[in-house]
Each structure stands twice: as C-alpha cells, then as structure tokens.
C-alpha cells in the first residue's frame, strides 16, 4: 500500500469511526453518572431512521440531526425514568428498548428504504488540509468528523477539569457522599443520561446521513452493542474510548484489505474479527495484567500510570440512589 492509499484508508477509518466516537462519548457521560443505557442498539437504529427520514422530508440536515437527537434523548430518558423513579432494572429496560428500537425503526421506516436522501457535505478545512499525512486524514473531512474529534476533547475536559464534571463523577462513584456535598444525584443522572442519549441520537443520524447514507432494515444493527463494549474497554474515558472506536473501524478496513489480499480465505474469518477482538480486549481488561504491569514500573511512575490506565467502572454504576 503506497502513501496516498494509506492516507485514504486512514481517512476512511476516521470517518467510519466518527459516529461511534460520538455514541461512545455520550454513553461515557451516562455511565459515569451511574446509569447504564443498554438501549443503544435500538436508539441508534431509531435515530438513524429518524434522522434520515426527517432529513429527507424537510431537505434539511440540521432538522434531521435534531430529530435524531430527540429520539436518542427519549430512549435514554425512558431508561432513566424507569430506573430512578420506578426502581426497575436498568439492564431490563435498556434491553427491551434495544429490541423495540429495532422493530420500531423497521416499521416506521418501511416506506423509506432504498430512497436517496440528503447527505452531509464534504467540508475540508483550507490550509490545514495540506499538512502532510495528518492534513488529509483529519482536516479533509466533514462536520461529523470534526464534531467527533472536538467532542472527545470537550468530554474529557468536562469530566476532569470542571466542577459539574466532579459532580457527575461523584454521582456515579459514591452517590451518598455526593449527596452530602449538595449534589442532586438523581437530577445529575437524568441530565447526563438524556444528554448522552441525545449524543447517541446524533451518532445515529451521522450514520444515515453521512457514513452509511440511506436507510434500510437492519441498517446499523450491532453498532450499539459495540459502542457499549468500547465504553468498557476504554475504561470509561473518552480518549481511550476513541481509540477503541478507531480500532474497530480499523478492523473493518483491515478485513476488506486482507480479503483482497487473501481471497482464498473465506469471508467467515474476516467477519469474525471484530467479535473475537471484542472478547480478547475485554479479557485483557478484566485480567490483572494492567495491575501487574503497573507494579513492575518504578515507584514514581506508578501513580500517574494508575490514573491513566484505570479501567474500573464507576462504583455505583447500575444502582439506584434514594435521596434522604
């Protein structure tokens, strides 16, 4: 593969990964507050369908994205409400919504399959795009990619360098203590679950309006589950999560490339790569390799390393908090 082909592949990987990055950042916000939104697969499908249809009917991209964000927020809102107010299992509600989203999107979108719609225009950034290698990969893209990249930074900054971010993390780690500090834990959880859901909605529209244009039955099925897994093995951190998304994007590109290079090997092997990869990475994360690795490092490095490589979930993830 020569240089320009390499660059093209890289750019394509980033484009493919961008909606996933957006969804992952959204879910990280949700889970850091203590809520699991297992409905991602269904929300992504519903959002993709909604974004496409609304975009098509109004010929307006912004409305499409907006409608998709609302749909994502609605799904997330149901999970939040069902868990916080009604005390039901987040996993159960999320799972039902995941399946329901699939069926609903198929039903509601049935008249719009295989119809051409609107698409996000290519918007390269002048000057920057001419930087060798990085230029074409990062700056010769469209607004979805730029949004995803900026979102990584914003999410990280919000979580780690702001007061609201501390309150968010506190709600997910130790809600009793956060409550004692004046944090409205359940309000925080509602807020970030819905916000996260809106981002997931945007990600769904990013698929049907940009990365995988159009709508069909089963369009982005499976991506939601992958996003959830990436959140876990990204250790609930936006930067590592983005790497995870890129890794998954890369496996797809890799699969296509390998398939061309080795046509004899059956499709099976390549299709299985992402799933086998998922298992392997989750295994690596669950084992104590990280801990052993850190312990082997010089004392001074251990503390910052531990901070960077921490993979434990928010301690109160999935639990219900009763105030007062």
């Amino acid at each position, binding site marked *: 593969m020569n240089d320009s082909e390499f660059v093209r592949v890289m750019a394509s990987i980033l484009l493919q990964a961008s909606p996933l990055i957006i969804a992952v950042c959204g879910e990280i916000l949700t889970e850091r507050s203590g809520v699991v939104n297992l409905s991602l697969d269904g929300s992504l499908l519903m959002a993709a369908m909604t974004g496409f249809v609304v975009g098509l009917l109004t010929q307006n991209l912004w409305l499409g994205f907006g409608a998709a964000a609302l749909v994502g927020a609605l799904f997330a809102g149901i999970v939040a409400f069902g868990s916080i107010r009604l005390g039901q299992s987040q996993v159960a509600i999320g799972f*039902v919504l995941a399946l329901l989203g699939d069926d609903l999107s198929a039903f509601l979108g049935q008249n719009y399959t295989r119809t051409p719609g609107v698409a996000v225009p290519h918007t390269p950034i002048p000057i920057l795009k001419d930087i060798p290698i990085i230029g074409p990969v990062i700056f010769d893209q469209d607004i979805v990619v730029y949004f995803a990249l900026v979102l990584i930074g914003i999410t990280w900054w919000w979580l780690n360098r702001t007061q609201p971010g501390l309150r968010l993390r506190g709600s997910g780690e130790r809600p009793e203590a956060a409550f004692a500090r004046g944090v409205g834990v359940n309000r925080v959880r509602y807020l970030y679950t819905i916000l996260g859901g809106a981002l997931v909605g945007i990600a769904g529209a990013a698929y049907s309006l940009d990365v995988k244009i159009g709508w069909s039955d089963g369009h982005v099925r499976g991506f939601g589950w992958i996003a959830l897994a990436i959140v876990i093995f990204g250790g609930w951190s936006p930067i590592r999560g983005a790497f995870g998304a890129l890794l998954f994007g890369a496996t797809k590109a890799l699969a296509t490339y390998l398939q061309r290079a080795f046509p004899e090997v059956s499709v099976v092997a390549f299709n*299985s790569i992402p799933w086998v990869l998922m298992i392997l990475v*989750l295994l690596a994360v669950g084992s104590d390799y990280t801990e052993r690795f850190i312990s082997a490092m010089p004392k001074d490095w251990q503390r910052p390393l531990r901070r960077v490589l921490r993979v434990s979930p928010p301690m109160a993830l999935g639990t219900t908090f009763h105030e007062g």
Partner: protein
Amino acid sequence: MNDAELSQGKPAGTQNWLLRLWPIVPIIAALLFTSGLLLLFNAGPLESYSAMWTGAFGDANKTFSVLAFWIPLLLASFGLLITFTAGLWNIGIEGQIILGAIFASWVALKVDGPAILLIPLELLAAMVGGALWAGIVAVLKTRGKVNEIFGGLALNNLAIILTNYLISGPWQPPEGGSFRGTTPFQEAALLPRYMDTRFSPLSLVLAVSAFVIVFFILRGTTWGLKLKALGKNPYSAFLLGVRSERETIMAMMFCGALGGLAGAVRVLSWFDSLRQSISGGIGFLALLIVILAAYRIFWVPLIALFFSAVLNGSITLQLRTQLHSSLGGILTGVMVLFVLLFGSAKQLGIGKTKQVVSEGAPEVTYSPADTIVPGKHGGD
C-alpha cells in the same frame, strides 16, 4: 390513607378496584400504542388485529404453526429461568439455539439410520451444542471476567457467521449455494409432525418435560437454592458453601442445553434444513417473555403462546396489508416495556416505595471486574 393502612398493604375501598384491575392497564396501553402506529399508516387497527388473529388461528394449519413456534419459545424460556435465578443475563441464548441447530444438523446430514436412532441422537447433539456454546460464555465470565452480556453477544454473532459459512459452503445444497439453507434433511431425521403441519407432538413432550424439570429444580432441589443464593449475593453464597464458579457454568450450560433443544426443534420440524434465520429471534423473545412473566414459571406458557400468536399473525398481516411484519415485535415489545414501567400501581400512585414488578429480577453487576470468587473481597 395513613401509615398504618399502607404498611398493611390493604388500600382503602374506592381504590381497591383500581388496584385489582391495574395489571391490565399496561396491556391496554400497548394495544393503544400499536393502534396509533397503525393509524399513522392508514391501516385500521381493528382490521389489522383481526388480520393478525386469522393469521394466527384462522385455520388448523395456521394454529398448528403457532403451536410449533411456541414450543421452542417455551424451551428457551424455561432455560432462561435457571440463568435468571442465578443472576445471569444470558443474552447469548440466541447463539445457543443456533449451535443446537447446527449440531442437530450435523447428525441429520452425516449419520444414517432409522428415525428411532437419529432423533434421540440429534436431540442429544443439540443439547451438547447449546451447552458447549453457553459454557464458553460462562468460562469467559468466571475466568476472564467478561460480562456475560458481551460474551453472549459476541458468540451470538459468531454463531450466525458459522451458520452462514455452513450454508454457503460445506453443507450447501446440490444446486449450489443460495444462502437460503443447507441441503434438506432426510425424512428419517426430521421430527414426526402432525399431518402436514409443522407441529411435532414429540416437541410438546419435550417442552412439558422441561417445564416439570425446571419447576422442580427451582422449588425443590439444593441446586436450585444454590443458584438462588448465587443470584442474590454471590459472595455470601460462596461463603455458605456454594461453588460460585462451578454453579454459574452449570446454570449456563443447562440453559444452553434447553436452548439447543429449541434449535433442534426448529431445524427438525419447523424447517427441514439449517437456515440463516434458524433461531428466528427466539432467544431474545424468550428473554422478553421471562421478563414479562415476572420470572414466574406458571406465567410463561400463556405469555409465550401470546407472543407466538402475535408474531405469526403479523406475518400474515404483512402479506395482507403490506405493513412491515415488525408490528408484531412492536406490540410484544411495547407490552413488556409498559409492564416494566407502570405494571405496578404501587410504584406510581402510592409513595415512592421500592416495589418492583419483577421481584425476581436479578441484580446484575455490570462491570468487567465481575467476579464471584474471593480475591475481590480479600486482603487488606
């Protein structure tokens, strides 16, 4: 209503009838919701529901189809009751059904003999296949700390990939690979069916046996109690003498075996060969059924029958009205959702009690550090 009455759980007179009737409310709400969707697409709800009804029970053949779809749902659901009791979310049930079908197909295609030999062999192979696939998820969880939701998902997809490979490759029909299915099985390999329907009375026997076995396991055996303890508090269960790792694996494999059996019924009676859609979403449906049944075994058969009727009926609906058959899935899904959300009047009306509809719902820890052996708690 004052505190004393609340704590006794006996509501005052006028609200009594409302509480009694409450369980129906989410069901009616689900019907209203689905009707709304139908209206959106200019389809009359009443016609649509009656089309569904005739699609399900219109004639004897159709009715038997509903029954034939019902059996694997039952088998999978009974298996899931075991894993739910143990506190596990066995999303991988879909893959276990598929593997059961694959193993049964292998016997059907590769072994020659009379039905009396083939069928038990196929059923056994199916149970082994499903149990093995579930076992992998279980070991990933106990040894690898991979949450069973993700382990199950990955293995579901791998099972589908494997099926597609077999269909288009080694087991393709003589006319050439068409991605539709493998070569059809010999007659002796198939389960005997009632006349020319897809329903196999033998499969009913299997389902009833499964019901009885699971019922007794949960109510009257030490193993069932161990699983119950494991599901509620894995560490305490361990300290009380429950070998948590082993029991998790056993529970998953038991469910996998029943799932595999469901797959065998599918591939040997509903179809006559291994197909792409061999599992038919039955695994996920079974999860919904068990949630809707509030994890109570006696409610499962009726709810499963309802699901089967709705889903089969909606296929006819699609044929008649051009409406996408996912409507059936929507109706059933919305019903489960609404029951979860407002199935318990107490939650909404009276105070903020922690009452949940499904008292059996497992508390699942959603984390890669899912561990049920000491080490997590050990040490200072």
